[in-house]
């Protein structure tokens, strides 16, 4: 009996079946559900680590200890993890290790688009790429066995359309002795101490290993030639293989599951057997350039763009443009959607603790607001438009320091750096240390909603629980004080005036000032209270309540006699009773329903 599973569920199942004992990661779309599924198998130790580098190091250590391990991250998380996994290619491990990255072609939830396949040749490690849920499960075991046979971590690259799509999966059993304790560690400095004198000796071996892995790639079952019509030979991997297969049911294919090193013999065979080779791959010409370097004529990026996803419709149009698909096979683009439909931008949820901060910041002038990654980045959008920057995890602090040493304050502008609590622990602590040490003169804020909200409410060091159970909470205020910050103010996220006062006071202070805005995410605090309503006899339609950007508030059809403005109304089903709107209403027209 096959079970319908998402790619992330299937990957977790694969970890279970393959005897993985340790799984670590930092949440990030579309990778987060891998660990959330793995934790349901009690045989596997699973944790959310503070960031991707920490997570990778933990997984590497577990593999040194002799446990099959994996670590998960989103596409940009790989940049953070890179420092850790590069050396592990030199040391090898005592058990299999997978570096699992979920790429995001199309940038559905990332600040930049990047093709993480490049990390395989960059770090000189082999790579596999599943195309559906069955492969997502099966490739875990295949890659772990490869990792152990060749004493090298394997890059397991998945992507959004595999991670969040579901297809039937044939399940297997866990074949593993969970009672077995690891073998005793024997000191082996030449292998595990990566100082230059020992690491350098391994360089020729690392190149030779890649050469040998080409032969593995030629023979491995997950790379296969599928002969059909001899006109077109298509090379594809990941979900793109399925899109292309659907368009060309008759063509010859080289379907790749192992995409580094490439199977040179199979590529040559395909090229020899067909009239033309086409490489269909999302993002960079990773495969195409290697095929061309073999002296084989092929086309890829001269047909397809090197950015965004390559879904069926786009592949069809691109191929039709160059005469490789009859236009009648391309789906008609129907012009039936009405023009200028209103957008539905994401907004802060009802009851969100960030609302008071961005309401206040949206009304401040001459403050450069250096923000960061998380739900609070919605402060950049309507109705707040209250941020100047967002870049990478921790940069809300790091870049604000740069603004100051760059001299921007000479223009009369102040600098305010913002990070969330999970982001603070992830990569905000080190820039803060830097700012304390170097005497930075900016205001910093941690918006502490007591969770990693945007990716689905995962734990971090500032909360009382871990992925598996009870944890030790690190107090942000105590930590910051211990780091040498003296001007610290804690504000109540659900008190608009308190937050306003805290920001104004901090901006007026000389030297580094620090605000912690505390208030739990609605979905963690679960503090639903009776809803608010608008007293229509008092509302004059001024519209200030819209400036808090709360979904239940809308314009009613009742018009105020004098102002001729439509009065506000609140949907009592959506309202969770946080009261932020009532605090900003100058007419005191917004009242709690039971009051």
């Amino acid at each position: 009996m096959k079970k319908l599973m998402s790619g992330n569920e299937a990957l977790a199942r694969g970890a279970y079946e393959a005897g993985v004992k340790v799984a670590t990661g930092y949440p990030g779309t579309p990778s987060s559900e891998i660990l959330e599924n793995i934790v349901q198998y009690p045989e596997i130790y699973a944790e959310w680590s503070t960031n991707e580098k920490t997570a990778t190091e933990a997984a590497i250590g577990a593999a040194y200890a002799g446990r099959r391990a994996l670590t998960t991250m989103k596409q940009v998380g790989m940049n953070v993890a890179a420092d850790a996994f590069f050396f592990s290619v030199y040391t090898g491990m005592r058990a299999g290790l997978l570096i699992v990255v979920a790429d995001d072609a199309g940038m559905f939830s990332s600040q930049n688009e990047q093709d993480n396949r490049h990390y395989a040749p960059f770090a000189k490690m082999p790579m596999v790429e599943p195309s559906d849920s069955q492969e997502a499960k099966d490739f875990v075991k295949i890659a772990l066995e490869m990792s152990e046979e060749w004493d090298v971590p394997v890059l397991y690259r998945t992507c959004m359309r595999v991670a969040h799509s579901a297809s039937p999966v044939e399940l297997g059993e866990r074949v593993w002795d969970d009672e077995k304790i690891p073998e005793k560690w024997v000191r082996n400095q030449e292998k595990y101490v990566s100082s230059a004198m020992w690491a350098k000796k391994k360089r020729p071996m690392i190149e030779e290993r890649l050469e040998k892995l080409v032969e593995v790639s030629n023979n491995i079952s997950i790379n296969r030639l599928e002969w059909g019509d001899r006109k077109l030979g298509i090379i594809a991997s990941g979900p793109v293989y399925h899109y292309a297969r659907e368009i060309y049911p008759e063509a010859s294919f080289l379907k790749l599951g192992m995409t580094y090193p490439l199977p040179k013999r199979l590529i040559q065979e395909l090229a020899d057997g067909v009239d033309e080779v086409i490489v269909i791959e999302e993002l960079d010409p990773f495969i195409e350039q290697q095929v061309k370097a073999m002296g084989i004529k092929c086309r890829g990026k001269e047909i397809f763009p090197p950015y965004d996803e390559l879904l069926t419709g786009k592949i069809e149009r691109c191929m039709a443009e160059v005469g490789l698909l009859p236009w009648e096979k391309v789906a008609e683009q129907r012009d039936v959607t009405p023009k200028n439909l209103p957008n539905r931008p994401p907004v802060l949820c009802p009851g969100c603790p960030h609302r008071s901060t961005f309401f206040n910041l949206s009304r401040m002038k001459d403050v450069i607001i250096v923000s960061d990654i998380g739900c609070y980045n919605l402060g950049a959008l309507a109705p707040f438009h209250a941020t100047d920057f967002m870049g990478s995890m921790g940069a809300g602090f790091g870049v604000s320091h740069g603004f100051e040493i760059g001299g921007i304050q000479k223009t009369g502008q102040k600098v305010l750096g913002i990070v969330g609590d999970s982001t603070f622990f992830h990569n905000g602590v080190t820039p803060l240390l830097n700012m304390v040490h170097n005497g930075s003169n900016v205001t910093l804020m941690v918006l502490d909603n007591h969770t990693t909200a945007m990716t689905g409410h995962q734990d971090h060091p500032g909360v009382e629980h871990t992925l598996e159970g009870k944890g030790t909470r690190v107090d942000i205020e105590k930590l910051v004080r211990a780091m040498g910050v003296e001007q610290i103010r804690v504000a109540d996220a659900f008190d608009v005036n308190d937050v306003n006062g805290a920001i104004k006071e901090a901006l007026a202070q000389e030297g580094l000032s620090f605000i912690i805005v505390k208030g739990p995410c609605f979905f963690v605090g679960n503090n639903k209270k009776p809803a608010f309503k608008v007293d229509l006899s008092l509302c004059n339609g001024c519209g200030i309540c819209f400036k808090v950007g709360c979904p239940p508030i809308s314009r009613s059809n009742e018009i105020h006699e004098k102002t001729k403005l439509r009065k506000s109304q609140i949907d009592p089903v959506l309202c969770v009773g946080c009261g932020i709107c009532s605090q900003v209403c100058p007419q005191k027209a917004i009242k709690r329903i039971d009051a």
Partner: protein
Amino acid sequence: MKTINFMITGVGGQGTVLASEIMAAVGLAAGYDVKKSDLLGLSVRGGAVIGHVRWGETVFSPIVPEGRVDYLLAFEVLEALRHLGQVTSTGTILVNQQKIYPVTVSSGLAEYPSEEVIDESLYATTKNIYKVPAIDLALQVGNSKVLNIVLIGALSALFDIEASIWESVIRERVPAKFTELNIKAFNAGRDWMIERKNK
């Protein structure tokens, strides 16, 4: 056998993800190869959500290819209009008669499309339009949250798959204490569609 393509659209929090899960499981139980894909916005509530479900002999892409939606199951009127270009001229659209204003509309920056624009664009897409009063039917059986199951019930009446298959898939996927409520919701949607088709 031609692959059957479903697209499920709505607003985060309306229960579209469970609906696409049920659609996929019913297809599997009815003997099809199945793939599905959910495109979720951020974790925050209230954004637009899109689900894809495909039934066929062998399904390749988990995403319905552009312009090839056979059934559009829209949980909200604006989120139906947004995807009309994906529906084939012989396709079928079920649209829940509910309007959820995005902040751009509620704050007065944009206008929600008028009834004329809604009707004109729906019927320009296909003649097979079903305006399902799903939110009203859900409230009648007792809870607006079962709106998704009402819509599934309405859709079920367009297929030659026994009601018991749909019901058992629903039973497996909803919390035990809400099973009867959900079965009522399913039947309310299904009966509405049967009556509508007989008119």
